[in-house]
Every structure is written in structure tokens, then in C-alpha cells.
């Protein structure tokens, strides 16, 4: 048990972040963290040494998160394929350049709020790919394996997630942006 406690301490923050990225609700994310670590503990004997423990744990956490989303939507099926067939983000529209130091425009908590609200507007299947590849630093191959997607599907979702986030953040960060716009909420 001491060895498992060490694993919990090593990966709890990452699992909490990934769960939040998907469920967008702190209480649900807390439940996901507990359920994911419990499930991983119960299935430790099924863990194949050919993948990293972390990516195996992330796969469990992603599945638990999607189940939580489904519960919240009273049984409606939720999958990482939901709403991904959109053309939004396939071609940039807002092409104004950004302030040279966009982070200086907002305080720490206001910035976190902007980033949370902005990513919240993306479909779950884009959020999770962006979170795993760009926030958690998994490779394209690890992300594909974790989500059960093909490598081209991961690449396509990542590109559109990045472009959609860029487009939505433009209103806050472009050269003539006023911090007061943050009050309006993300598009």
C-alpha cells in the first residue's frame, strides 16, 4: 500500500487536471480522481508493462470522466467523438496580432478564469486531446493509444483545438484588447 500511496502522490495533480478538462466541474473531478485511483488499484494485475503506468492511469481517468459527463447528462451517451465534426477552427478568421505580452494584460486569477472559460467552449473530444498533448505533454502516439484514436485523428483534433482556442483567446489578447472585455465571457 505504501508503494501505491507514492503513485497517488506522484500523479494526483495530473489526474485532477485531466478530469477537470473533461468534466468541467470540480466536484465531479474529485470523484473521478478517487474512482480512477481505486479502479487502477483493483486492476493492477491487468497492467501490462508494455505501456507506462501513467498513460494506463490516464486512460482509466478519461473513461471515468466520460462516464461522469454521461451521468450528469442523465444517461445521454458521451464519447470523445462528440461534436468533433465541426468546421469551426479549420481556418483562422480573427487575424489581428496579439499584444507582445498578453499575460501582462490580466492578473493571475483573471487569466486562469479566461483560460478555463475559453477551453470550456470546446467539444470534450477536442479538450481532452489538447489537454493530453499540449498541457500534459503526452506524445501523439501516447495520446492516440490512451484515447483509442488513430494518429491522424489525434493530429486533426489537436490542430482544430489549437486553432479554436487561439481564435477565442484573440478577443482578450489582441493589441487593442481591453481587460474589461474579460467580463463578457468567452465566445
Amino acid at each position, binding site marked *: 500500500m505504501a508503494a501505491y500511496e507514492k503513485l497517488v502522490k506522484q500523479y494526483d*495533480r495530473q489526474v485532477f*487536471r485531466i478530469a477537470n478538462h473533461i468534466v468541467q466541474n470540480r466536484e465531479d473531478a474529485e470523484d473521478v*480522481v478517487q474512482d480512477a485511483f481505486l479502479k487502477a488499484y483493483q486492476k493492477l494485475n491487468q497492467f501490462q508493462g508494455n505501456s507506462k503506468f501513467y498513460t494506463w492511469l490516464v486512460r482509466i481517468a478519461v473513461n471515468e470522466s466520460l462516464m461522469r459527463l454521461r451521468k450528469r447528462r442523465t444517461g445521454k451517451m458521451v464519447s470523445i467523438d462528440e461534436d468533433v465534426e465541426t468546421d469551426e477552427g479549420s481556418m*483562422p478568421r480573427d487575424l489581428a496580432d496579439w499584444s507582445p505580452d498578453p499575460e501582462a494584460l490580466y492578473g493571475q486569477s483573471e487569466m486562469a478564469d479566461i483560460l478555463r472559460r475559453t477551453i470550456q467552449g470546446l467539444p470534450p473530444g477536442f479538450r481532452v486531446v489538447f489537454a493530453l498533448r499540449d498541457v500534459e505533454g503526452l506524445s501523439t502516439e501516447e495520446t492516440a493509444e490512451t484515447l483509442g484514436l488513430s494518429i491522424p485523428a489525434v*493530429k486533426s483534433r489537436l490542430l482544430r483545438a489549437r486553432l479554436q482556442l487561439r481564435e477565442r*483567446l484573440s478577443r482578450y489578447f489582441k493589441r487593442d484588447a481591453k481587460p474589461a472585455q474579460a467580463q463578457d465571457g468567452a465566445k
Partner: protein
Amino acid sequence: MTCTEFLAQLDEMLDQDAAIPLRADLEEHLRCCEHCEITLSTTRTTIQIYRSHEIYELPEDLRERLHKAILAKCRKS
């Protein structure tokens, strides 16, 4: 090279994949297309900002509470 062709290679540019086919053409396109130059730089900033900000922080008291709950459930199972 068109903007659409450039955009198809944007991820490779962002991930600084040294083996991008047509790298010279992409860089040439960037030199003469302000829109794609802005798209590349602002998308790069988007990723950096999300990486450098902890938007879902796990406070220490909650963390301890979760550890206790997880270990208790594991012992029971």
C-alpha cells in the same frame, strides 16, 4: 504555397518537427504572408499560456482529503 497548405503543416511547425517536408517552402510562405505568421505566433502563445498556468489547481487540503479517501477505499476493496 497557399495559406490552406501552410495550415495543414501548422502542427509540425508548432512542434518544431525538424523533418517537416517542404520546410523551406513553409518558411518562404511565412516571410510573405502576415496572416500565417500571426496564426503561427499566436497559436504558439496559446499553447505556452495554457502550459504555464495551472487552471485547475489541487489545493493541499483537498489533496490530503482525496489521498485519505483513495487509500481507505483501496484497503476496503
